[in-house]
């Protein structure tokens, strides 16, 4: 009897103020922590815009949308078109590699592969996805470029083709795994329906599964483009820093990301137009990738089939 009362008293005491206080204060703490991620986004937008605005105040728009980029010359010029050009070309080559390869891998893994093959290939894809981009950069520069130089005699030591291809390889797992998820989400009864009509496996994949999974596949491609645009180290190392506006993919071109890296690791003194130009390029890059990300979400949400 007495023991019972003692236990009750202890519980009564412990329920009291101290734990009540913790229970009330913790939600506030968690909310504050959660707001850090929001603050980060605001921080990015704020830092990019404040310094980008200073850039646009100093540089007329006509110069910004010109093809001449030479930030360190005596008569500096800040045309962004060479950078956009370089970004488009590297990303384009990456997509030419990543999309067909990634989709083929996704189709193979979800439609054809035996369970055993999947068990081998899926981890390989994950490993490929986990390799740091600096390693791919080294690989592009020290292996792929020399290899390509033997095939294409006019190829420069820094060029667009090699980093483009390697970036594409790096992105294959992204396209493959997201597209495979989309294909696996297609209900099995639909596959059975097609097989029951005498379709070959290829016909099931091309005529039923891919059309049904098309929104997921499209959104994986958009995310891949966004990834290619934002990729930094491979292009910085292997495509170099030529600021010429050209369409010759055998020679060096600079991407937006490459420009940011080159300029900060050089000596961009705070307060110069060159320094502010980093943030202008950064803002553009941020806007591009944000747009792509939103687009990917939009596609996968809007065109989701109701099966």
């Amino acid at each position, binding site marked *: 009897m007495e023991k019972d009362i003692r236990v009750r008293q202890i519980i009564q005491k412990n329920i009291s103020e101290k734990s009540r206080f913790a229970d009330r204060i913790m939600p506030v703490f968690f909310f504050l922590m959660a707001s850090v991620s929001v603050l980060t986004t605001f921080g990015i937008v704020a830092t*990019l815009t404040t310094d980008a605005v200073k850039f646009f105040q100093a540089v007329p728009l006509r110069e910004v949308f010109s093809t001449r980029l030479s930030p360190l010359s005596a008569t500096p010029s800040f045309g962004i078109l060479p950078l956009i050009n370089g970004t488009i070309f590297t990303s384009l080559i990456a997509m030419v590699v990543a999309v067909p390869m990634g989709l083929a891998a996704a189709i193979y893994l979800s439609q054809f592969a035996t369970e055993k093959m999947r068990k081998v290939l899926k981890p390989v894809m994950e490993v490929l996805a986990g390799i740091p981009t600096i390693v791919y950069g080294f690989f592009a520069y020290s292996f792929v470029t020399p290899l390509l130089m033997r095939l294409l005699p006019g190829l420069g030591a820094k060029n667009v083709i090699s980093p483009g291809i390697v970036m594409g390889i790096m992105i294959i797992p992204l396209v493959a795994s997201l597209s495979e998820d989309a294909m696996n989400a297609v209900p099995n009864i639909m596959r059975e329906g097609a097989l029951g009509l005498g379709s070959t*496996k*290829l016909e099931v994949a091309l005529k039923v599964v891919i059309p049904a999974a098309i929104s997921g596949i499209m959104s994986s491609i958009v995310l891949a483009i966004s990834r290619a645009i934002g990729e930094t*180290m491979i292009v910085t190392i292997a495509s170099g820093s030529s600021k010429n506006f050209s369409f010759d993919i055998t020679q060096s071109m600079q991407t937006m*990301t490459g420009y940011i890296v080159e300029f900060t690791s050089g000596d961009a003194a705070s307060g110069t137009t060159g320094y502010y130009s980093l943030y202008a390029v950064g803002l553009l890059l941020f806007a591009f990738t944000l747009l792509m990300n939103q687009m990917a979400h939009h596609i996968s949400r809007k065109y989701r089939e109701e099966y």
Partner: protein
Amino acid sequence: MNGTGTEFMKKKTLEGARIPKAASYKIEIDRDRITRRIRKSNWSQHLFSLSTVFALLVLGILLYRIGIQSVGWINWNFLTGKLSIFPEKAGIYGAILGSVWLMLIVVPVTLVLGVATAIYLEEYANKGRVQAFIKINISNLASVPSVIFGLLGLSVFGRMLNLGSSILAGGLTMSLLVLPIVVVASQEALKAVPGFLREASYAMGADKWTTIRKVVLPVALPGILTGSILALSRAIGETAPLVVLGIPTLILKFPQSVMDDFTVLPIQIYYWTLDTVLTPEYANLAAATILVLLFVLFVMNSAAIIIRNKFQKRF
């Protein structure tokens, strides 16, 4: 037989029954065509499997090349020596130390921020606008290029808070970069905690915080750890934000505190790769450093997989 079957056996007269209109066409089965279709499918299968195997091949070539190039360069001196402009004498001890120091910042910061954010989103937030907003925000943050985080770090930590290119500045920048990974992984882990455990705790009169602390978190811990290790392995291999922060090219001093300048493994790879034109041996040093980096990543990922497998599906 007590007449069960027979009465419902009487067939109904079918109302409006139509004899199907006899088809005026005949679909012939073209056996050659079927042969061609099957052949096409088989060929495509080979093609698809080849492009999947291509990934395997690239991985093989990459590892092989790096292995070949680093043979003879990885040795005790390389792992424990100081940086040097002479390739034969150069060591990466400073970079290893730098990576460890960086982790000393990233681990606590991301764990506290990431897990707390996940707890807020999963356990406290109403399923309303605030939650949706934070979720969208995190998903967007995950897709921001790492070089942009570098610019953020440069402005906010480097210049505004005057931390320069110190370990603290780099660590905080890197923490924000991998934060979304930790948040999403922790959310998944918290979601996987079955509702009956929470109910059992509440039923004994425990309050929400006690329930989370004593019941939910311990159960979700393996999932959180797995996600966090993957986030850390991202942070260890990431280069661009630190380059943007302005990590010095050559550091001979080992870092002593979080306010010191530092270098990390990927940065060392970057600088050596850039200079291979002048000193070809730098390619070997870069390859050897890559091997060390990949080994560290391999160990971390294995740990994550072991944790995941060991604690998977206990309910």
